């Protein structure tokens, strides 16, 4: 694979992870918050909550996000992937405010802005510094 094709694939996978993760978390939060029982160490309660459609949808999206992230980690450094995908935290705060009507204070918005900036700074560095991705079969 040429380095340009590899870079394109890296950014495509990155976009997919960035959107799947917060959407999955939103669905999961919606499902667990509307679930009548408190989640404890009892595995039966967990089995029941997994059967909730919103929780199941959230888990499905998060599972797909996990696989996409694995593919992404085959191409890019962990120290690149972590901060760049953090843009999902900004989306999570936004979804929390819009869909779950959570109060997001000015301080929390400032925090999301810092995460956004950090993401941009790390995003401007080369994705793979170890050369392992290129060298592997």
């Amino acid at each position, binding site marked *: *694979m040429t380095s340009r094709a*590899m870079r394109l*694939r890296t950014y495509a*996978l990155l976009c997919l992870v960035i959107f799947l993760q*917060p959407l999955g*978390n*939103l669905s999961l*939060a919606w499902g*667990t*918050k509307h679930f009548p029982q*408190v*989640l404890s160490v009892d595995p039966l309660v*967990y089995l029941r909550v997994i059967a909730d459609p919103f929780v199941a949808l959230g888990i499905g999206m998060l599972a797909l996000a*996990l*696989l*996409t*992230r*694995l*593919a992404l*980690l*085959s*191409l890019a*450094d*962990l*120290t690149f*992937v*972590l*901060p760049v995908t*953090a843009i999902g*935290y900004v989306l*999570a*705060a936004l*979804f*929390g*405010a819009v869909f779950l009507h*959570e*109060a*997001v204070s000015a301080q*929390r918005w*400032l*925090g*999301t*802005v*810092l*995460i*956004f*900036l*950090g*993401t*941009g*700074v*790390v*995003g*401007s*560095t080369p994705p793979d510094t*170890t050369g*392992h*991705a290129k060298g*592997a*079969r």
Partner: protein
Amino acid sequence: MKWILLSIVVAATAMSDLLQSHEMKRAGPQSVGARGLARLLKAVATRWKLILSIVCLAISFFAFMALLQAEPLSFAVPASAASFILETVLAKLVLKEQVGARRVAGALLVLGGVILLSR
């Protein structure tokens, strides 16, 4: 209780990510197309470090779910990003990634954001 749950989430996430990053570099470039996904799933099923990383992820996930039910989404999700700093240090030491000034600056900005979000 929320800080105990958060600690479990952070430690298990860091362990899982290190294992995944290490093993996926050895597995070679992957994709999530129809054919790519099958190859990726095969790689996950046949590499013990990836299986162990999924176990760590499951621990992190169940602790996260309990945290999510008790705390606001806009706290739980960003606070779990505290694993960034631990992972950045471990990626440099264990995975030998080149963590230059820009990456450190970016990670510190993210940490600043996490602190603001979790107070």
